[in-house]
């Protein structure tokens, strides 16, 4: 099997490269070949063949020269296309960032700088093999709104991989790369991780630098890792986490030893099960899977307590006011002046240029959210919507503060449903928004969360095939308690695998 190296975990792969057992070039080769072979999944919008191979060759030389290699030496990683890279185009899934080049072809925006997380990955020897597809400007839960077309779920290519970091989840799930970076504003790492059967972490807000992440909703956006196991995600987060003087919202809180925390497991942790996450909208097979995990945790000797987060039901409304308001402002810089798309009829004046460029550059969902966000901030409506939502956000945070006085970790489903069919919810924005109902509250509270695969379910959807689809369990911890989160997640992962 030629692709055996990509079956290895992040940690194992890095150790083999560091020990000289595997040349990095061979890994880069395998990853690049896998990406080409599975182009049907549409996980990537840019493949960085040359620069990835060059980086791999440098690593191998470095090792031959006896110089120490980084913590992610030779680990192929996919970057969500919302992360700026100086040597790969960035388009954020949007026509807005595509321009016709001198070669007559459309290419993404060439950022003059690297995102801080990208710099940190490079410094630790990661192989940045390409940019992963995503919902346009990270606004979506299905990776269907990308200008490059929908990304497909490797478990069933007729289904969505989740979103918005769908390409990143698919890259990891289909073993095109060992890990990926996504960004999570309301569930955009955890939900696709659940739908694709991989581990996805949304760190505490402020844990990871946002510098170089194309902003969707600044008070919610966080970059985080995806990998096939908890330990792999822990190592990647350790590399990208930590204070960044270029991001004023980045917290100066020491980064723990997340990999070591994985060894601790669930023992001694008090788990809480919030009733509001097990309501009517929850798919029965997912409920059963999560209850199965809870039973194993109890069997392992942990206390499990029912708890209540009474404002959960207001999460979606709060989120869509705050996130769209911030987005409407964040996306104002896409005006056709300094970069990106410009549409200019002959003789058009400045306002016509703005209006035409933005109408042509943004897709349907993005426009919807810009309009909503502009509306809730506009004169006469600010207090009723934006200011109101900021206060409800406080209530949602207080819910978590209260339960975390009694429990250490919350356990919930990541998503109320398994991956749905491509096209199924595109015309129903509200139904699409509900896909994030279990992930949004943690984003609003700023607390860290992780989705860990916890089983498969067979779906009867009237087709000949009856695909098996993954289910994810979500664990949540208080602010900056990533070590506890990884301990719990690695423990749950072990309990699930033991079956």
């Amino acid at each position, binding site marked *: 099997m030629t692709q055996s190296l990509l079956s290895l975990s992040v940690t194992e792969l890095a150790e083999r490269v560091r020990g000289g057992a595997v040349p990095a070039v061979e890994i880069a080769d395998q990853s690049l070949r896998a990406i080409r072979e599975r182009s049907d999944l549409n996980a990537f919008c840019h493949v960085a063949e040359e620069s990835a191979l060059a980086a791999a060759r440098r690593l191998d030389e470095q090792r031959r020269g006896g110089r120490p290699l980084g913590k992610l030496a030779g680990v192929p990683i996919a970057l969500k296309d919302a992360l700026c890279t100086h040597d790969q185009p960035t388009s954020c899934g949007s026509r807005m960032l595509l321009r016709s080049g001198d070669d007559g072809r459309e290419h993404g925006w060439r*950022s003059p*700088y690297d995102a801080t997380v990208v710099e940190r990955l490079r410094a630790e020897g990661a192989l940045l093999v390409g940019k992963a597809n995503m919902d346009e400007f990270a606004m979506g839960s299905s990776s269907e709104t990308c200008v490059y077309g929908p990304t497909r779920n490797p478990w069933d290519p007729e289904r969505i991989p989740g979103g918005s970091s769908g390409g990143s989840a698919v890259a990891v799930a289909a073993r095109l790369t060992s890990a990926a970076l996504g960004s999570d504003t309301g569930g955009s790492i955890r939900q696709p991780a659940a739908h694709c059967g991989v581990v996805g972490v949304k760190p505490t807000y402020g844990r990871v630098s946002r*510098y*170089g992440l194309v902003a969707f909703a600044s008070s919610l956006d966080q970059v985080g890792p995806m990998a096939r196991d908890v330990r792999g995600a822990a190592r990647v987060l350790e590399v990208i986490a930590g204070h960044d*003087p270029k*991001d*004023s*919202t980045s917290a100066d809180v020491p980064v723990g030893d997340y990999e070591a925390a994985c060894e601790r497991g669930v023992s001694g942790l008090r788990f809480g099960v919030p009733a509001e996450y097990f309501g009517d909208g929850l798919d029965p097979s997912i409920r059963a899977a999560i209850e199965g995990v809870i039973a194993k945790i109890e069997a392992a000797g942990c206390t499990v307590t029912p708890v209540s987060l009474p404002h959960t039901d207001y999460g979606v409304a709060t989120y869509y006011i705050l996130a769209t308001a911030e987005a409407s402002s964040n996306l104002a810089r896409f005006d056709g002046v*300094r970069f990106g798309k410009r549409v200019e009829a002959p003789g058009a004046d400045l306002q016509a240029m703005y209006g035409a460029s933005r109408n042509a550059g943004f897709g349907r969902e993005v426009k919807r959210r810009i309009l909503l966000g502009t509306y809730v901030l506009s004169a006469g409506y600010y207090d009723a919507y934006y200011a109101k939502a900021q206060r409800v956000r406080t209530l949602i945070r207080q819910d978590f503060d209260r339960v975390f006085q009694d429990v250490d970790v919350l356990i919930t489903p990541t998503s109320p449903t398994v991956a749905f069919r491509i096209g199924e919810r595109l015309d129903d924005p509200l139904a699409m928004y509900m896909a994030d109902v279990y992930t949004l509250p943690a984003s609003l509270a700023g607390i860290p969360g992780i989705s860990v695969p916890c089983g498969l379910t067979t779906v009867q959807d009237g087709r000949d095939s009856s695909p098996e689809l993954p289910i994810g369990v979500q664990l949540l911890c208080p602010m900056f308690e990533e070590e506890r989160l990884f301990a719990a997640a690695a423990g749950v992962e072990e309990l699930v695998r033991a079956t």
Partner: protein
Amino acid sequence: MARTYEPVIGLEIHAQLLTASKLFCGCSTDFGKPPNSNVCPVCLGLPGALPVLNERAVRLAVRAALALNCSIVETSIFARKNYFYPDLPKGYQISQYELPFSEKGWLDIEVEGRKKRAGITRVHMEEDAGKNVHGRGGDSLVDLNRAGTPLVEIVGEPDLRSSAEAAAYMRAVRDILVFVGVNDGNLEEGSFRCDANVSLRPLGETTFGTRVELKNINSFRFVQRAIDAEIARQTVILDGGGQVLQETRSFDPESGKTASLRSKEEAHDYRYFPDPDLPPVVIGEALVEEERAAMGELPSQVRRRWVDELGLTEAAAQTLSQHPGYVRFFEGVRAQVPGLEPKKIANFMQTEVLRGAVVQGQRVSFSVSEGQLAELLTLLDAGTISGKQAKEVFALVEGTDQSPKAVVAERGMEVVSDAGELESLLRDLIARNPKQVESIRAGKKQVMGFFVGQVMKATQGSADPKVVSELLEKLVTES
């Protein structure tokens, strides 16, 4: 019948803070560089770039607020002011809106001898926009070198009642900001500019009329002319029974008139909200006290000290406290010649030194050094040279590093105050001009000038005319 109206005026002043780098990024604030050469991802508004606040900008803003007698608000918020404009790269300006860092200040001004205290609503920090250049091949061009430059906006209360008061207020704010070292006071380069809100009301009325905002006034002369033009325009409207429309107007210095930019209906909906990229600005007591100390004496305090302790006239104190460089020079000379009456230094600075002084922002270049002036005034005070000679020596040493003492010696300019020499000269003259002596004795004092003139001629101007007059009077009366 025409009624009398009272103008109600409030100014909003934008002043650039004297930092090396921009408000939210490390790009240089240097002026006059090629277009788009002081730019980076942050001030270009590139996707993914984030703002980080400049500490010195905060400090200078605090100092400006303290100098304007404002109280400092411990926790303030940066907000986004959203509007589309080519020179505004992010599509929003980062400014302070609901919670500025300072409020409730005041400033004393003086117009035609009348003193007045003008209120200041608030001082807040914000970033400047870039520059648009028009008329290039049918397009406009955008230069973002200035985008992100730190500003304070000083919002004045509507306390001003004439264009002269407005100009005096604008000047006073400029002088004080330059004085405490936060602004270069350069109106030509746009680092100090203002908007004026103008309304009229019938004299005696206490409610405000509809106000018009005059945008971007960049000279003291224009502020007065623009407001006068606007007062005249509104007066005509009100006299004709019309209503002033709430709008934004601009002043055209060529026509001397104001013209409408946009009406209230077209006013922007800026959709202010707290910038999620920037946590609150927390200004601690320690920082405030450090800036209070760094601010030193304010011009008003300097003037009071000079008048009360040094005996300077109000006018002299006013003139010499206009610029911190003047104050440093005056105090520097004073320190070198502590025995000299400060008034004499002040007089000579006002009449001679300031004529050759060139102000450039925070810096003043003088045509002589403090040391040269100290030496010159010492010679004058000792009577070695006359006042007239002092001016001559000053002119000779200006722009050189020559010592006044050396110049005086070289040119033999020492005053002839040897009474013996002068007496023999005068006795000779008295003997040769009995008629004139009789006239003096008869009370025609002005004839004394004839003798003094003759002595000055004979001594080639190096005699002290005062000494000569006294001696002459003595000789005439005794003989």
